């Protein structure tokens, strides 16, 4: 699986039930989303919603990094 580095600060929901509800078009209050932040330069953790990766890559919000760079 590819690794990605944040090019800017990102906030993403971690609550699985909340993510399902958001995907279904529901409004989910901030407190139920379990928001987490990724700082610029950090490697994205596994919890970042997969569907966000494609568009964030295209828009330059994240970049793909090689495994060696992740270990360093």
């Amino acid at each position, binding site marked *: 699986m590819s690794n990605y580095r944040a090019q800017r600060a*990102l*906030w*993403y929901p971690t609550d699985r039930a909340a993510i399902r509800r958001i995907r279904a078009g529901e409004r989910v*209050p*901030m*407190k139920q989303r379990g928001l987490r932040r990724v700082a610029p330069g950090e490697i994205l953790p596994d919890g970042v*919603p997969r*569907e966000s990766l494609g*568009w964030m890559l295209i*828009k330059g919000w994240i970049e793909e990094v090689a495994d060696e760079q992740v270990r360093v």
Partner: protein
Amino acid sequence: MSKFGSDQVAFCVLGGYDILSGVLISLTDKEETITEESHTLGDAWVEHSPVGVRRAELTIDAFYDDATLGIDECFSTNQSAAIGAARALVYGVEGNTTGVQFVGWQPAQVIDYERVLSRGSLHRVKATLRNGQRTGAPTVIEQGRIIKPLAGVTATGNTTGAAIDFSASNVSGGAAWLAITSLVGFEATGLVVDIMHSADNLTFSTHAGLLSVSASTPNGVVNSWLQRVVSTAPVQRYVAARWVAGTGFGTSAQFMVGFAPK
């Protein structure tokens, strides 16, 4: 189609002064295209042709109120500054909830202010504002949507849970409006407000061009503020507001954030 009434006028903030609360009776926002009579010999009817210039005028009728940050202070405490001063103005026409429309003016130049005292009546005030200034920035009169209603906050937060869906991402940016009407116990740069955006309503980031609208010197001497920040950088489909209560935040802040995409 929806109809709206006077109870849904959510706020009216001029340069940081909330001039709605308990005093505003009517507000008329008028835009006009200047025309010239262009009929000639042989024409049976008068004709009017646009000359390519528009004018906007906003008239306010309200009860007189001498409260701190009240309407009289807004227009007259420092007469030389109030009359002729160009300020930004926002008002809410469809209520004070996320997603509804607001109108923003910049610059709104105060051209007259009247106190009307009549026998057997409550004191009234009237004011007229017009668009633009000779040496000022171009006139902006725009409609946007409220992404954080005018309400108090006591800690850092955001509205990603109720992000506004603008149907599509754009490549031309937009304008963010921040109207602060109260900062309690505030010092220095205690409040920073950002616009957040996302293409899927899941993962958000702050918008670089609309970042860090910081209330560093709220209106000079009073704890209120109004600012419009523009960016031409692309804005993603879902838009929300974020605020950070930093060092010197105090106990509470009351503000509204709106966004108008371009």
